[in-house]
């Protein structure tokens, strides 16, 4: 009898645990349009907002959005402040040592340089990028002088005010700024393929949740809804699956 009560209690406890686990906190940056940004109502918006909400709906999870500085986005994941990163984070071998990724929800997308004129020196000049991105790592390898900024917007501003000769980041996130600059800014040089696409990052100790989202991403790839989202937010030219 005692065992039975204990068993029931344990069952009730684990049921409670499952319930609590159903709220998944999605960590994002909120400063990388069109992937993720804070809209004028003060809410997280963008490609990843719509994607994340759809993934949670398919996985039958309650999700909550959390914004975090890009700089400390991985440390705060591993210390458990949120459960996943969905913030335009490219899958790289270096990051894989710390966190686990789902399959990419974008194909490897090109990075590009944007500048005020098309005769800038991309290998010897001063190139702006965002701290801790694969593009920043790439600049170091080209021999150019790298200046790092905490956000996309500040990296762009550095080019506009002449502090840097060009900025390199994901082409999709530079495109709106370039297209709307009225000819002031332009893409320079060839597109560069970096990374293995963008994925969601999870703690290494959290394989179940990763598998859940991986399956949800696969289902969105299979029925083509992911491609629709990419076209809607990242533009017609962005590579699709």
């Amino acid at each position, binding site marked *: 009898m005692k065992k039975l009560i204990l068993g029931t209690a344990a069952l009730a406890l684990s049921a409670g645990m499952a319930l609590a686990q159903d709220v998944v906190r999605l960590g994002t940056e909120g400063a990388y349009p*069109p992937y993720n*940004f804070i*809209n004028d109502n003060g809410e997280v918006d963008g490609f990843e907002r719509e994607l994340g909400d759809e993934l949670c709906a398919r996985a039958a999870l309650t999700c909550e959005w*959390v914004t975090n500085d890009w700089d400390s986005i991985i440390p705060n994941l*591993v210390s*458990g402040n949120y459960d996943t990163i969905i913030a335009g984070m490219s899958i790289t071998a270096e990051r894989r040592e710390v966190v686990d990724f789902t399959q990419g929800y974008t194909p490897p997308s090109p990075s590009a340089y944007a500048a005020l004129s098309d005769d800038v020196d991309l290998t010897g000049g001063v190139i702006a990028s965002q701290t801790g991105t694969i593009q920043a790592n790439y600049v170091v390898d080209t021999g150019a002088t790298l200046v790092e900024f905490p956000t996309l917007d500040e990296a762009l501003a550095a080019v506009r005010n002449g502090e840097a000769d060009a900025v390199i980041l994901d082409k999709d996130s530079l495109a709106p700024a370039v297209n709307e600059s009225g000819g002031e800014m332009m893409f320079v040089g060839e597109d560069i393929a970096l990374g293995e696409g963008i994925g969601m990052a999870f703690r290494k100790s959290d394989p179940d949740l990763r598998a859940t989202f991986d399956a949800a991403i696969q289902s969105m790839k299979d029925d083509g809804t992911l491609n629709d989202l990419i076209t809607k937010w990242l533009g017609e030219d962005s590579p699709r699956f």
Partner: protein
Amino acid sequence: MFGYCSDPSALDGLVWLSCYLTSGKHMAFYASFGTVMLLLAITAPAALLFGFGGAVAARSAFWPLRILGKAYSAMVRGIPDIVFFLFVPIALDQAFEWMRHKALCPEWEAPVRQGNDFVVCVEAKLPLSASPQWVHESYGFALAVLAFSIVFGAFAANVFYGAMRTVPRAQLETAQAYGMTERQSFWRVLIPQMWIYALPGLSNLWMILIKATPLLFLLGVEDIVYWARELGGSKTSIYAYPHPDWRLYYFLALLVFYLALTRVSEIALARLTARLSRGQATMAGEALRKAAV
């Protein structure tokens, strides 16, 4: 906010501006001024308490307490603020979660540290993952207040320690001559006279504290500087209110806010100094006495 704001792209001029300045994001910006004031309102007394405790400990006749008090003020003053602000909240958070984990999930066998990961059971999470966002934000804010209080408390401890030693020795000897115990002379003679000597140092600390509040963003609290940067950055048409780089205007507004806060503080501190000088054996106290005659 206003009814005519439903389609911002069709508006221009002042109407556009009135909609822009009342968007949800701007409301969050205005509310963050309250966050900063709340931080100041809680941190200042808390830091005074920490400082007072540290100073009393540093003067203690009981040596372990004395060492503790001196180590507190020496260590915290010696470590760069930013290092401290980054370390303390994360360390405190993990310490709390670890203790709850031990208490609430004794049957858990997996290690808490798994490589880089810090894994505690779901019930030990602080706050619980399932709790609403405002709980998470208040918790982050509370950790920030604690970190600020510890840091500024250490500086205040040193100010109090110095102030307590500046009270003229004759005052304490007189108290003893009247037969007051150690404790009585401490509370009735030393403490009331100490404030006037502590005030210049404390007012410096207050001014520095006002200017240190932007460090809040390091701790994940969205303060006025975060919102100014976020709102002022150039916005493409993916946003409802596209505009070029307006950070200058937002930071000018912050400048005015901080200057106004500094001015108000100066006036209040000047009044406090005059009040505390009354009847004190200082030059200001002497001047007050002469003026009254």
